[in-house]
């Protein structure tokens, strides 16, 4: 069908890009709101997430406590907002490390090819074969003491081979295009080609993968929290809030439901934005 359509209407090449749609902007808004909350949690008129109000233990959602309180009387709404800090910090921080190292290497390897590419790619593929989750857990569990920075660093480094592979594949599909050869022929330097020709075309792929990567890392952080390998209580994170609430969820299901909802909505929005960008920029499926 597409081929036939191209045949009949190729006159003025139609914009292939689908419009982004309202839902996309709703998701962007939601993500922005979460990030805003995470950054300005201190400044916002929120209750202290660590304050144990024993006069209001296990309260349901209401006016005073929007999402209710937990078994120690702590305000769940403010804990959810504060909890987003850890998730977002880990997700964004780890991906920044991953992209900071993996993306330039991937682009360079795909553009330069030759021995540089061969050696680097072999190393990365071996690292990729090593299950990143297991390695992360093993390192985090024996590398005391735990802390946010260490978690970000370990997950970030573990994501480098994956980012490298995605960016390298994406760059290679672009680097063989005639316009790259044309730029070379006009006497453009390698740096100019990387910045002016390759980067603008790799960026959309990179951004959509980055967003989906952030979502994946946040999920991983949640899993680590369940194992007690994320930040230490009482600092709230979405993961450890859900984990702590499990024991009392029969009595107070809100304790589980609100942080779960916050986590899932945030992940959903990230995935949706990433997915929409991918189809908008006509990027072929890049597998995670």
């Amino acid at each position, binding site marked *: 069908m597409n081929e036939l359509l191209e045949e009949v209407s*190729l*006159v*003025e*090449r139609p*914009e292939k890009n689908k419009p982004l749609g309202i839902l996309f902007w709703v998701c962007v808004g939601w993500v922005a709101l979460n990030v805003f909350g995470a950054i300005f949690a201190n400044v916002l008129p929120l209750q202290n997430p660590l304050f144990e109000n024993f006069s209001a233990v296990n309260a349901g959602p209401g006016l005073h406590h929007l999402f209710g309180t937990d078994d120690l009387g702590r305000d769940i709404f403010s804990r959810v907002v504060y909890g987003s800090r850890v998730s977002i910090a880990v997700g964004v921080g780890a991906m920044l490390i991953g992209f900071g190292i993996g993306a330039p290497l991937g682009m360079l390897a795909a553009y330069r090819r030759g021995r540089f590419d061969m050696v680097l790619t072999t190393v990365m593929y071996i690292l990729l074969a090593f299950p990143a989750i297991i390695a992360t857990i093993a390192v985090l569990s024996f590398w005391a003491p735990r802390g946010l920075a260490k978690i970000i660093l370990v997950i970030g480094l573990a994501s480098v081979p994956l980012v490298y592979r995605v960016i390298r594949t994406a760059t290679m599909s672009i680097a063989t*295009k*005639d*316009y790259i*050869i*044309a*730029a*070379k*022929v*006009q*006497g*453009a*330097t390698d740096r*100019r080609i990387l910045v*002016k*020709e390759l980067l*603008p*075309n790799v960026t959309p792929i990179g951004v959509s993968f980055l967003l989906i990567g952030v979502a994946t890392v946040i999920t991983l952080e949640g899993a680590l929290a369940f194992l007690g390998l994320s930040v230490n209580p009482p600092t709230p994170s979405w993961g450890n809030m859900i984990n702590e609430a499990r024991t009392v969820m029969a009595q107070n299901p809100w304790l589980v439901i609100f942080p779960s909802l916050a986590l899932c909505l945030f992940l959903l929005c990230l995935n949706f934005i990433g997915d929409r960008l991918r189809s908008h920029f006509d990027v072929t499926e890049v597998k995670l």
Partner: protein
Amino acid sequence: MTQERQPLLKVRDLNVVFGSRHHAVSAVAGVSFDIFPGETLGLVGESGCGKSTTGKALMRIVEPSSGTIELEGVDIASQSGRALRNIRTHMQMIFQDPISSLNPRRRVKDIVAEPLDCWKSVKGTERDVLISDLLNKVGIDPAVYGNRYARQFSGGQCQRISIARSLAMRPKLLICDEMVSALDVSVQAQILNLLEDLKHEYGLTLLFIAHDLAVVKNVSDRVAVMYLGKICEIGPGDSLYEAPAHPYTKFLLGAALEADPDSPMHSQVLEGEPPSPLNPPSGCRFRTRCPNATELCASEEPQPREIAPGHQVACHFPLTITRK
């Protein structure tokens, strides 16, 4: 001072080998030719014959494994770094796929200005005037289309933009690699005429690579025919088409379709398909499909020899030439 014209481009014994030692494919095997200033040399052959690779090797887009490529006496094959980048601006190339030869995320003006910006040779308003002028020359209104992105254009328009870009540095030699084969006939005619006009206006020398015999004849002064990595015949277009000396050229011309119901049907069709370049036949590479092949063709490779002024053929038994 000699009376004889000096060639603009002198290619001697060009070889391009792809792949590793065990799977070596010699895509171009000892190709030599000259291109004189102001002329158009057509390079024609079937897919896989190495014509495109030859064009790319001249620009060092693929690395030649041996041979010399002299542009006005300077050997391109031995240049590197900035010198190579510099010498490349004297030669430009237009590609087969008009759409993929333009960066979809850049504006038309910037694409055409790219060579100037690379060298920072022309700046400011002078640059803008030059770009507008180039776009006008190829029939694209710079005021209307200059700020559009390349992805919004059709194949024919993209090819016009490519031509404008290639002319920005005032190259001496333009290599056109199947530049009209992706276009419809009506658009193809527009582009071919445009190319002819610009050739005169800019005093260009062209290497025109294509598989379409009629198109090649139309644009070329001289034509070279390639088969399996080698040039089998080279000569002035009109005489080569009228009286081909190499059996392969004759078959190729015989297979060409004419839009004329009275033209003869293909009575003599070349049988079989070209052998694999991984394992080319000994001696003459065409001998496995040639009706005139003998023992000699298998044992000894025919060297190019002149059968008429400027008309060379690499065949032990060239077809008899009947001249008017």
